[in-house]
């Protein structure tokens, strides 16, 4: 065996060289098509829309009016960040990329995206609080395609039975008081999602910000107050233990069972809400001392990744403009169950469906997670934050301990 190894090694080395050469040839042979017209690639995080959907139809139409063929690929949203990074690394980015808003700062940092100034995209009509998530150091890296945010859905029938008047729920104490009454009536209080992913941070932020806490000081008293509110709910049985593992869908399904009075959930559930067996209503998430808590904005941005061939930007710009212009934006946001990022279109949406009013208000009050000039520091803060939430809710640590640990981690990761 020993005597045979050298031979194996030379053969192996020769083959390796051959394989690498083959790869290199393949790399250099490949180059994007640059003919006039041609094919433009679009990546979006909406795999649920098939080729015959309205969304894809709209994309194709925009391609036709720009004189090109659009080749669209829908990826799962959690995969899209890595795919976009890898594609950029290989110099093979799509022409148009639609991506979740907190990712924009990461991709911009990586130098994957062009600025709207470079590609002549007009963002002047967009609401500033929504546009904020796509901005970093004074530059804008994309156009919001639509927005969503969080609010409290409530079960009207159940609250009526428990003798709760929802109009009295305006701050944390009154919300907790309502939960106590619901529990006394033999029902369950509130469900939300505190899973150990970005979703968990997303759901915690309205309470965190609503207490007046800042993402730069995770262990400050207001932050501890917000986490204590959640842990107390769990301890008192106002919220189920399953929230620790709930995705937003799971918590919605719990609410849909009719056993829960409240559910913290998003704009996108409106279509499902229509299918509920009971009457539901929506209130904004109350801040600690009353008023509406700022909720984080969700929703995607549409942006133009950097291309080796800058001649492609003009057509990409036409595509983006087509997708985000008045009527098309209305179509898109209706399809996605999103609130438009443009005030005029929001008015059209409310005119068509008065129930959207509360959401339009919520979106106006919302703020971007990567805003406050956090940019790529946000992901480094968010992960310790959701870990702390999990740790406190599962009883491993007290809220103060958990958040102090989170602050230490975040501080060392962002310094």
């Amino acid at each position, binding site marked *: 065996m020993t005597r045979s190894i050298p031979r194996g090694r030379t053969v192996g080395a020769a083959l390796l060289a051959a*394989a690498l050469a083959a790869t290199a040839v393949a790399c250099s042979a490949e180059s994007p098509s640059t003919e006039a017209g041609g094919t433009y690639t679009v990546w979006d995080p909406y795999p649920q829309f098939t080729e015959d959907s309205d969304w894809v139809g709209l994309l194709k139409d925009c391609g036709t009016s720009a004189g090109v063929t659009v080749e669209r690929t829908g990826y799962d949203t*959690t995969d899209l960040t890595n795919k976009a*990074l890898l594609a950029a690394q290989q110099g093979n980015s799509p022409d148009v990329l639609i991506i979740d808003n907190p990712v924009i700062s990461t991709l911009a*940092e990586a130098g994957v995206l062009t600025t709207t100034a470079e590609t002549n995209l007009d963002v002047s009509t967009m609401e500033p609080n929504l546009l904020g998530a796509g901005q970093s150091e004074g530059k804008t890296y994309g156009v919001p395609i639509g927005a969503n945010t969080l609010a409290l859905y409530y079960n009207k029938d159940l609250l009526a039975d428990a003798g709760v008047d929802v109009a009295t729920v305006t701050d944390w104490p009154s919300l907790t008081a309502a939960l106590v009454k619901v529990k006394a009536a033999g029902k369950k209080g509130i469900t939300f999602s505190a899973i*150990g992913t970005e979703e968990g941070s997303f759901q915690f932020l309205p309470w965190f910000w609503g207490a007046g806490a800042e993402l730069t000081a995770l262990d400050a008293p207001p932050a501890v107050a917000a986490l204590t509110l959640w842990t107390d709910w769990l301890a008192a049985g106002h919220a189920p233990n399953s929230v620790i593992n709930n995705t937003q869908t799971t918590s919605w399904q719990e609410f849909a*069972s009719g056993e829960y009075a409240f559910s913290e959930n998003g704009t996108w559930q409106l279509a499902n809400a229509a299918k509920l067996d009971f009457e539901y209503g929506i209130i904004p998430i109350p801040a600690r001392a009353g008023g509406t808590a700022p909720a984080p904005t969700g929703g995607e941005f549409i942006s133009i990744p950097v291309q080796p061939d800058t001649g492609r930007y003009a057509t990409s710009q036409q595509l983006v403009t087509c997708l985000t212009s008045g009527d098309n934006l209305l179509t898109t946001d209706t399809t996605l169950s999103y609130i438009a990022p443009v005030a005029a279109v929001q008015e059209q949406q409310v005119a068509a469906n008065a129930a959207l009013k509360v959401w339009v208000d919520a979106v106006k009050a919302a703020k971007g997670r990567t805003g406050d000039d956090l940019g790529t520091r946000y992901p480094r803060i968010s992960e310790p934050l959701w870990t702390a939430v999990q*740790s406190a809710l*599962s009883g491993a640590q007290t809220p103060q301990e958990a958040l102090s640990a989170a602050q230490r981690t975040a501080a060392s990761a962002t310094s």
Partner: protein
Amino acid sequence: MGIDVTRTPRSATVREAAPAVPTAPSARRRRPGGARWAAWAFLAPVVVYLIAFYAYPLYRNVELSLREYTVRSFVQGGAPFAGLDNYRAVLAAPTFPQALLNTLVFTVTSLVCQFAVGLLLALFFHRHFPLSRTLRALFLVPWLLPLIVSASTWSWLLNSEASVVNAGLALVGADPVNWLTSPRWSLVSVIIANIWIGIPFNLVVLYSGLQAIPRQLHEAAELDGAGGWQRFRWITWPLLRPVSAITLLLGLVYTLKVFDLIWIMTRGGPTDSSTTLATWSYRLGFGNLLPEFGSGAAVGNLLILLAVAAGGCYIGFEHRRRLS
């Protein structure tokens, strides 16, 4: 039944004894050069394949782990060489001891339980009885489900709030258990699900291993007055050893890299209580808005080292067994 996985490894280990050592004198002393060339001709496709599809991704992964990558340098290139910094950081992270311990507990417990249950079931089904064929075939169904579905189903069954298992516990008067949401139970829950998934494979392989044991041996022993336990201890168990070894090895191979099951059921949480090296690597590289490629790759490579160590132990063990 004979998906004869079984006859395979069996004949392997039993008959292979001499040939496995390449330097052993063999019958083909004739035309050794010709055989050697022919051997490489037959092997060439697989070797090229291994280099292209294993060596390259692996090389990339090692490269990733030795550099200080930010998202920017990942895309634009020019990440500074960092030596073993990523490894040092990973080894010093508080998650590391927990993840290593969890990986070991998860792997060993899963392996032992899968094997024990699989063997008991194989012995049970080995005695033919009415419907035994049908029931045995039904036992294989869990194997056919895409993992994403079985994992989701388990997280359903074990949910704290509205789960069947807790409803069952309530029926017998026990308190509900927070299977997936308490640090004490989350690892147990994923292990239970993993054992469930592994049982069919163990059953199939061990059952066919039992089939391959000549019936006459048992009959002779029975005539000599050996009881059930003695027959198992002195005939079944020793003759099943080669098959057992291969079953455990394949089980190890697939248990060590389990990640989707845990990720779907608990995301490694709460607070790392069910994090293994595989899920940790995934979380670093993919589970966050801001991927940490370097550390993710480093954890992945540590996992591969663990696999190499396990493979080495297995081979050493086999070698010693053959010599004795």
